[in-house]
């Protein structure tokens, strides 16, 4: 099964609801080790994305993804604005003219997105950032796509890996972002950026199921 445009639009629209719902939780995670705005920022960003969706739902998938990237970049701010903005934009740059994403396309979108996060933020594994979630998740996605699994099966396989990666951020000491200033006090808290990234996967599964 590929992922069609209606599902992509549904995913993005649903993310707006998810971040509205998780606004306080993400902000609490951020208050523990950052500056208490991650939930607020994600909520604002995807609120803007939801406003934009009707203007691009007839366009190709590349345009939709790039619009999401630009919208997040220009409305989120903080570190997550350029990171998520680049994530969606890089995927969009590869998908010009596409009306649906097969499993190979899907893997390419995520891979380009994660490369974008690497270019912009230069994280290393174990720095306690969203990259600690995306690195292992990308591996599974590439592997499953290589086997020819459909998109739902890929996401199904990626979720438990993401869940574990998310829990694995808890004992880490942050080395990037504002959390890094807390030194050892950042240990014992789940990373907010990895958490908001995990919701993307979780929501995609709901939409595809």
């Amino acid at each position: 099964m590929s992922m069609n445009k209606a599902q992509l639009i549904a995913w993005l629209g649903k993310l707006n609801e998810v971040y509205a719902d998780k606004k306080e939780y993400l902000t609490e995670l951020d208050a523990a080790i950052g500056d208490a705005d991650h939930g607020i920022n994600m909520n604002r960003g995807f609120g803007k994305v939801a406003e934009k969706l009707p203007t691009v739902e007839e366009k190709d998938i590349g345009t939709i993804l790039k619009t999401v990237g630009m919208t997040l970049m220009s409305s989120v701010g903080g570190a997550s604005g350029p990171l998520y903005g680049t994530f969606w934009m890089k995927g969009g740059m590869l998908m010009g003219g596409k009306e649906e994403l097969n499993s190979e396309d899907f893997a390419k979108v995520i891979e380009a997105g994660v490369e974008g996060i690497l270019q912009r933020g230069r994280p290393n594994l174990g720095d306690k950032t969203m990259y600690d979630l995306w690195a292992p998740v990308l591996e599974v996605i590439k592997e499953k796509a290589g086997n020819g699994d459909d998109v739902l099966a890929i996401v199904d396989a990626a979720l438990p890996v993401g869940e574990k990666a998310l829990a694995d951020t808890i004992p880490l000491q942050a080395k990037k972002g504002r959390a890094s200033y807390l030194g050892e006090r950042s240990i014992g808290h789940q990373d907010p950026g990895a958490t908001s990234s995990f919701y993307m996967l979780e929501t995609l599964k709901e939409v595809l199921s």
Partner: protein
Amino acid sequence: MKKLINDVENVVKEQLEGMALAHPELKVNYEPYYVVRQDAPVKGKVAIVSGGGSGHEPMHGGFVGKGMLDGACPGEVFTSPTPDQMYECAKAVDSGEGVLFMVKNYTGDVMNFEAAAELVASEGVKVQNILIDDDVAVKDSLYTAGRRGVGTTVLAEKIVGAAAEAGYDLEKCSDLCRKVNQYGRSFGVALTSCIVPAAGKPTFDLGEDEVEMGIGIHGEPGIERMPLKSVDEMTQYAAEQIIDDPAYRRTVREWNGSEWEDKELTDEPFAKGDNVIAFVNSMGGTPVSELYAVYRKLDEVCKAKGINIVRNLVGPYITSLEMQGFSITLLKVDDEMLKFWDAPAQTPGYVR
């Protein structure tokens, strides 16, 4: 939460609207947000643009005006502005001589300003990003995002702003800004947390008898929590963190006109006989009278260490909303910096 707010969603917008009304010498743009001098772009002059989250009053909007900034990009409260703001602002103030982005070292600010510099450069505008990273509470950059940009930002905006006004070109402004940053060091202390409007409650809980040492400017907790001490003890602690701070080396990324280049920079420690500007800043909730109590002790510590305070600045210039507390910045100065420090400036938040 008790604050002078109508609607949490519109905090920054309504404050900018009020600022525009109170200061007709400024021009405020709303989509996207930025503040520029009414007379920008100033012919033949390098444009100095700064930016960062809102809530650090009066910067940066309050420092826009003759002798300081050409433009400022306010983000949401404690959230860095976005690349489109910086891009539009740079285009509005560039006279052809180029734009210097003064960036405080926070992951979000750095990434957004980098994206903006790429955009601005792609249109043929000369641009440079210079980082301010002066917070000695952060000990190294190997295990953190590096030192935060705090009080030295204010002094750099004044000094480099005056240099630009005096006709320095982009390269000389950038060199001077780098030098001010390398000669400036800061340390902050919090007695209370602040309340981010959108969060609606204090960012951290601090006991009646506790203080946070080594805070930044975003309501984030510091590096260490301590039992409350006298103002003399707290001041001495903060001043010694700054004066006794050893050499600090790190790699910064600067734009070379076509790509990002890593640069190794080392800041030398203070030495006996250094002339400094001493800046005692309120985090927002501490009255100026209490800052003078800090200054009193700071003067004593500096004298004991052979550091000469040749100029000073005392007041709320880089706040963290209504947080009670203070920060100290010492900037080693030479004749070039002093000349520009003493030059006239006409802005809402700083007049000389």
